């Protein structure tokens, strides 16, 4: 009997210090965030790596989905608390009555080139402008997202009629091959695929435009999105999330062009670091202005994504406002 109690006491004595870190880990609130492995999400990964979220009592569980569009549906289903999403997809959901709210900015176009989107065409193919693309095939990764929208704006800006351009959906990794082999006449590509395409097919293809900085310099691009009832209920959690993320933004902005940032991006995207050296980065802002959302809505209306949208100001959660 005494033997058993002694053993139990011994067990408790050994277990107590072992359990302590586990208890501390339990104190962290788990938060699942949907991301895609693109340059825009560098601040989130920086904040995780630097322990900024842990310092706020949050443990971020990223769910990276490279291909499919499970982010926003997963948010509606309650699978995620926050989702990285391009502005157009988010606003289309809002138009359909879903209560998406912007929690924080993710990326914005640079005021001038180089920036993360580029129009690529075949060398000597005779395509220089949107006007040349009328009746031709332009590849975009998806229809009705930010890449497609800025691509259409570029077509119009350079004298073409966007309705006369045939958009074809081609995944980013396959665009360079499709272009070099003549299956499409031009493509709107995104970094790091632009740099990779110019490295591997540089003798055949070239960059003819910068859809972001030519049509919407400094324009909004992608954001972290939450859903209104959850934001109202767990306001404090999202305040802490935004604080951690903002520290990640600072970390990234202080290291633009430095090897630590390249290493961070290589780690989460699995793109080899040497291929990331010449890659253009987006601007990494913290806040979102109502004006930039209104600009995006106006552009969407212009290119056929019409309908009734709420004002930009009403879609910004308090953490997104300056």
């Amino acid at each position, binding site marked *: 009997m005494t033997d058993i109690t002694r053993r139990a006491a011994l067990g408790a004595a050994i277990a107590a210090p072992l359990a302590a870190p586990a208890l501390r880990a339990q104190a962290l609130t788990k938060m699942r965030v949907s991301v895609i492995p693109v340059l825009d999400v560098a601040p989130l990964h920086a904040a995780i790596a630097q322990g900024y979220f842990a310092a706020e009592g949050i443990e971020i569980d990223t*769910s990276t989905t490279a291909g*499919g569009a*499970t982010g926003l549906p997963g948010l509606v289903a309650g699978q995620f608390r926050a989702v990285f999403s391009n502005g157009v997809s988010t606003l289309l959901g809002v138009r359909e009555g879903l209560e998406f709210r912007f929690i924080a900015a993710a990326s914005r176009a640079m005021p001038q080139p180089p920036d993360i989107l580029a129009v690529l065409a075949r060398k000597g193919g005779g395509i220089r402008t949107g006007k040349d693309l009328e009746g031709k095939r332009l590849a975009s990764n998806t229809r009705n997202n930010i890449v497609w929208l800025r691509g259409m704006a570029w077509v119009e800006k350079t004298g073409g009629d966007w309705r006369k351009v045939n958009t074809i959906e081609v995944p*980013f*990794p*396959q665009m360079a091959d499709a272009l070099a082999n003549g299956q499409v006449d031009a493509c709107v590509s995104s970094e790091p695929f632009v740099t990779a395409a110019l490295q591997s097919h540089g003798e055949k293809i070239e960059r003819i435009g910068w859809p972001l900085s030519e049509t919407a310099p400094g324009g909004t691009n992608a954001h972290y999105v939450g859903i209104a009832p959850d934001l109202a209920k767990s306001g404090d959690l999202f305040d802490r999330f935004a604080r951690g993320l903002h520290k990640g933004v600072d970390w990234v902005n202080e290291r633009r062009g430095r090897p630590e940032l390249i290493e961070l991006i290589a780690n989460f995207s699995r793109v080899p670091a040497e291929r990331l050296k010449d890659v253009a980065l987006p601007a990494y802002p913290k806040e979102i202005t109502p004006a930039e959302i209104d600009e995006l809505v106006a552009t969407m209306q212009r290119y056929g994504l019409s309908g009734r949208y709420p004002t930009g100001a009403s879609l910004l959660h308090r953490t997104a406002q300056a």
Partner: protein
Amino acid sequence: MRRVSSGVWLVLALLLLWEVSARTGLVDSPNWPPLTRVIAVLGRDIVSGELPLLVGSTLARMFTGLAAGTVAGVSFGLLFGASRLARLVLGPTVELLRPIPIPAVIPPLVLFLGLDNGMKITVGAVTAFFPVLTNTAQGLRAVEADQIAMARTFGVPAWRRLSRVTLPAILPYVLAGLRVALALTLVTTVVAEMIAGEQGIGHYLVLMQFAGRAEEMYAAVLVLAFLGYALNRGFVVMERRLIGWFFATGREG
């Protein structure tokens, strides 16, 4: 023997064509690396333990789904075969659901089941369910009425007739369904991993594709090809052992 070796030659010839077309610039793209580089990467990632871990997790999900789908498929198949009413009531629903490509319903499954194991195992189970169901029902109809009648004449109780006469008699049909299900379940489990969540060889494949690492991507494809082949071979061996009597009667599986 000769048939096997000529088949192997064709595989080797195709692999050689892959190597030559990539080396000579016949196909000039970073998305078409030479086979030897893919194999080097494959070896490296097997030794590092990354690929075995991913494949193991995919297989675990696949077999869980397969088992669940098979149990459900056999149960419903027996019900279908035994009850005309069940066939009339459930038949049209099954016939409508069966042709739906599983990848098309993954988004709603995400809505109800999330992104993790639950959803992926369900995808596997649903995939396995239909071929097993239809084969079981068909098998039950094909069981010779004489066998059942004889068992009944000898006064064998109903549950014993099921376990000793009916189930062994339909086993070849169930196994034929299972063999189809095995191949399909591997495919759909990987597809589910490609679409959602950060799990398994399917997610790895897409991540590598987007990272522009063609060697790693093809290494995963080779692993899947080998896996599908090995599973099928293993199944055939198991089938011969389980129902050797069926083939011994001169019928082909």
